[in-house]
Every structure is written in C-alpha cells, then in structure tokens.
C-alpha cells in the first residue's frame, strides 16, 4: 500500500519534471551556452531518449538513493539534504512535541469545561490559531521579541560568537543533541534560544488543530453510553476524563497528528524563510527563486516518503490502541 503510493508519487514527480516549460538542458548549460553545447548536455542528461526509457532511468536512480544534481550548484542533491534535513527535523520534531502536549491538554480541558468560559476561550484561541498566517506571525514575533524587547535572536540557527568561540561538532546534525553530547552548554543554550521563536510559530497551527480535534473527539466520546456507565459506577471525573475517555478520543485524533506533522514540515518552508533557518525550506525557496527543478522535485519526493512512513507508523500505533481494528 505505502509502496504503491510512493510509486504513484514518483510517477507524478517525474511527470512534473517532464512538463517543465523551459528546457532543462538549456538551464543546465547556462544562458550563454552555444546550441551544440546544449545538445551535448541534452544527450549527456539522456533527454533525447524516449519518455519510458527516461522514466526507467529516473526510477533506477531513485532506487539507488540518487536524487540527481542541482541545476545551479551541480552538487548532488543528496549531499545537500544531509546538511539541510537535520536542521528542519530538529525544528519539526520539537514543534510536534509542543503541538501534541499543548494541543491534547487544551482539547481535554476544553471538553471537560464544555459550554463554559474555558471552552469558549479555547474555541476562539484555537480558531485564531488555524486562521493566522504563520509567516506573518513569524514577522510579528521578530518585531516583538527581537526588535522591541531584544530577548531572542531574529533568525539563524546559531549565534556568530558560538561559531567563533565554541563551535558544535556535527554528529547527528541536531544542534541540541550534538552540543549536549559534547558538553558544550554555552552552545546548547544559544541553539535553544534560536529555536524558541521558529518552534513557537511552527507549533501554532498544529496546537490549534490538535486541540480542536481532541476537543471534538472528547465531546463525542463523552456522550457515549460507556461514559455514562462509568459515571453511574461513581468513578471520579478525573479518572473518566484522563484514564478512560482520552484513550477513545486519541484514536481519531492520531490521524490528525500525522497531518499536523505533515503541516509542520511544509509550514517550515515559509517559516524557515523568515527566520533564515538553514533547513529544507530555505533550500527549496532558494531553488524556487532560481527555478532549480531537480531540487524542488527531489525535496518533494524525500518529504513525501517521510510523510508516508510517518503515516504508516501512525497506522501501526492505531492498531495497537484500537482493538477493534483487526489486521486486514
């Protein structure tokens, strides 16, 4: 199933790279190339072969983990990803954790307080959360916390003084992990300070989404007869809410968690741009400006594969949580 999806995705990305209006060979050769140079490159890239043959080659390269080269830098895209992917993952993982913890708590509390003040407030806040353009929020945060208050850095992943005085040795690519492994707490604190704003902005939408979802699921579950049965048995409300109902509510919510994770990655594109975060998003936006198709397509493909695998994991978790789902 998941493999089928990935195969389908490959076909679409390939198709997209085929319908590119401008001639890749010309782009690759550069603006001042002579026609015979362009033709040579075309042959070199295999662009003169049949579509089917090209797709075979394309798929073959993908299977070997080769995403092609950037038109502009001529560097293998895989090499670039090794640099950019960890930066994005660090941001995304952190904001997902924030989203889960924050969202589920708000959702449960709002449902418990259904129809009263916290619930109404929660409704307004969470709807605002899904209505606010993240890139704009990022700019506002920069204005407030950097320009006005000067509490936090405006962007980047690490301060210049850290780079000069106590650079982090890259092992995992996650600054927080690497710095901690190294015992470099000066750098660790600085990395964390740089993470705060992007994480907060990136978490806004998923927090709201998860909260709304959890609330809706909880309200649904709370009307079920088995909750009434638990109430009739005199179980304390806290037990009912957090020990019993939450498990029922989490099952449908999980699907959204997958989605919110997906959002975190795509939302990262815009937010990384604003915070000059050296991650995938910035890599892609730079590629957009330079119409560097192999990069755009390659990143899309990689991110999609990650997304599909995450959904697979979520399906498995759901299988564990919900005894009603039998293996099909």
């Amino acid at each position, binding site marked *: 199933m998941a493999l089928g999806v990935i195969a389908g995705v490959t076909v679409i990305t390939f198709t997209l790279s085929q319908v590119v209006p401008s001639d890749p060979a010309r782009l690759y050769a550069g603006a001042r190339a002579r026609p015979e140079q362009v033709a040579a490159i075309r042959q070199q890239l295999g662009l003169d072969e049949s579509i089917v043959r090209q797709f075979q080659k394309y798929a073959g390269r993908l299977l070997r983990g080769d995403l092609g080269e950037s038109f502009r830098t001529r560097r293998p895209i895989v090499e670039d990803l090794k640099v950019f992917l960890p930066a994005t993952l660090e941001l995304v993982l952190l904001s997902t954790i924030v989203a889960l913890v924050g969202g589920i708590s708000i959702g449960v509390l709002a449902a418990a307080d259904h*129809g009263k003040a916290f619930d109404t407030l929660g409704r307004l806040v969470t709807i605002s959360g899904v209505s606010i353009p993240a890139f704009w929020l990022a700019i506002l945060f920069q204005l407030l916390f950097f320009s006005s208050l000067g509490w936090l850095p405006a962007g980047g992943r690490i301060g210049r003084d850290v780079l000069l005085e106590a650079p982090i040795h890259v092992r995992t690519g996650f600054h927080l992990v690497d710095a901690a492994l190294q015992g470099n707490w000066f750098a660790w604190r600085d990395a964390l300070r740089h993470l705060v704003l992007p994480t907060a902005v990136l978490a806004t939408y998923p927090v709201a989404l998860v909260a709304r979802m959890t609330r809706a699921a909880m309200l649904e579950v709370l009307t*079920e*007869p*088995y909750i*009434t*049965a*638990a*109430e*009739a*048995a*005199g*179980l*304390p409300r806290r*037990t009912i809410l957090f*020990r*019993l109902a939450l*498990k*029922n509510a989490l*099952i449908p919510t999980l699907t959204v968690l997958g989605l919110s994770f997906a959002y975190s990655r795509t939302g990262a594109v815009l937010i990384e741009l604003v915070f000059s975060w050296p991650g995938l998003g910035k890599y892609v936006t730079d590629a957009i400006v330079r119409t560097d198709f192999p990069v755009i397509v390659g990143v899309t493909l990689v991110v999609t594969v990650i997304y599909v695998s995450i959904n697979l994991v979520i399906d498995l978790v759901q299988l564990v*949580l*919900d*005894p*009603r789902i039998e293996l099909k």
Partner: protein
Amino acid sequence: MSGELLRVTGLEVDFETPFGLSRALRGVSFAVESGEVFGLVGESGCGKTLTGRTILGLVPPNAHVRGSVSLHGRNLEELSPKRRREVRGRQLGMIFQNPGQALNPVFTVGQQMAAIVRHHRSLRGRELRARTRTLLHEVGLPNPGEIINAYPHHLSGGMQQRVMIGMALASEPELLIADEPTTALDVTIQAQILSLLTTLSERHRVAVLLITHDMGVVAATCKRVAVLYAGRVVEEGPVTTVFSQPYHPYTRGLLASLPEPEKRSQDLPVILGSVPSGLEALPGCAFAPRCDSALPACKDTAPPEVRFEPSHRTECHLYDSEGR
C-alpha cells in the same frame, strides 16, 4: 423484604429548548422497597429513562430538577456533587439498553471491571483479579478467565449484558437501575437476562428498578409496577392487580392494544391521538384528550390520587377518593 429503599416524590425535570421550556417530568412519584423488582413502564417520550437518570443524578446541564429522590429517607438532591457521586457509586448501579455501546470498546472486560472494583474496594493485583472473576462467575459467564482478556466486541450481546450486570454489582449496590436491559436482545437471550436479574435480586437482596416499554417483561419479572404517561405516574401497584384490573384508562387502553392469542384476527382496540409533547401546557389530566371516558373536569383540573388497596393507586377523575 423489608422497608422502603427509594422514594421519588414530585420529581419534575424541565429542559430549555429553542421552542421554550419543555417539561419532561411533571411530578413523578413512586417508591421501591428493598430487594424487590419494580417495573417502570411507559411509551417512548414518557420520561422513563430520564427518571432513571435523575435518580442517579446524571441529568444534562441544561435540565432543571425539582422534587426529591430519597434513599433510605435521605434526600439525594440535597447532597453535594461529590457525595452524590459516592452514593451513586456505592448504593446504586445501572445497566443499559445497548450493552455493546455501554462497554468501552478500547479496554478489555477485565480492565473495565478492575477500574470499578479498584475504586470501590481498593483491591490490588491478585485480589483484584479474583474479585473480577467472582463477579463474572456470578453473572453466569462460564469462563471468566477468557472473558477477562476479551474486548467487548468479541462478546455476544447477551454476554455483554452479563458483563454490564457484573460491573453494576461490583459495588454491591442496594438498587440496580436497569434501563430497557433486554430491548436490544433476542427473545431467548432476553429470557436468560431477565431470569438472571431476578435470581441476583433474590440472592443479593438487590432491588431492581426495571425500566421498560414491554408489558410482558414487567409481567414476567416484576412484583410491583408504575405506569408513566407524559412525565407522571398514572397508576402504581402490584403487577398482578394492575394488569388484571387496571383502573386508569391509559393503562387499560395500553393493555388492550397488545396483540394476544385470543385477539387473533380481530382489530385491536387502539388509543387514538399521540403523546403530548413537553411543550404543551396540561392543566388537567394529561391523558384527557385521548381518553374515551373523559369527564368535563378532566380537561382543566388535575386528577386526584385515588387509592384502592394500600398499594394500588391511580390518578383519575373517574374514581372518587374512597376508591370505587
């Protein structure tokens, strides 16, 4: 059998609706004695389920409750929510119409029962498991060891209802409220569950408030019965006399309209019209518009309570206060 366990007096419940205040219960009164099986019958919308919920203190937030529910003479309506919950947990138990929905689908039977047993008895580990098995055995489940680890959807409807009954018995309650416990089950399973309820009631001296629309179920299991109509008890008494000699025209009409072997191939007597909604003001007898023998007074004067024997009463203008 000794003494009064539950007394419901003048219970009124109103709901706010888009169309105004809806009066769901208009003064329900009846009493259940310790250890007896008491039937509460009525058609849909008469307020029987709500009566059960109100006794437990589980009404929706937009409901306004007046009147009193007393257990052993203590008015539950005056208790704090916390005390009320304790009473609910220890002295009352409830089973539902659809056992499949009343069991939590994502926990095993054992986990669900343990949560309740632990709460009431603060048992741990081995003792907890032993107690759970005893309860399952008690309700006639042959292999508690397997059932404990089963999820509700692995069980048949009859088994699910047995599990529910076991859970309700966990706290050794004095009153079990059974809301249409067999409506969703097949007749043969229904017979099993009803006989289980009567057996348990006798063995543990638990009173059962059996809420149902099925007169046959009442006849087969209950000692006394209250007939609800439009949020009021119109007749209450021993099942034998109420069913053989009903006084209230509604009870009479209802019993007459049941298909029975001797009425085969005949038209059944019917009650015309329909149950009034909670939004209608009913100054007189609620049944007056549908009643064949309505008197002028029925329309605007509330009917008096008439006692025939100490325990058989009705609310109707047709009889004077001496009960003739």
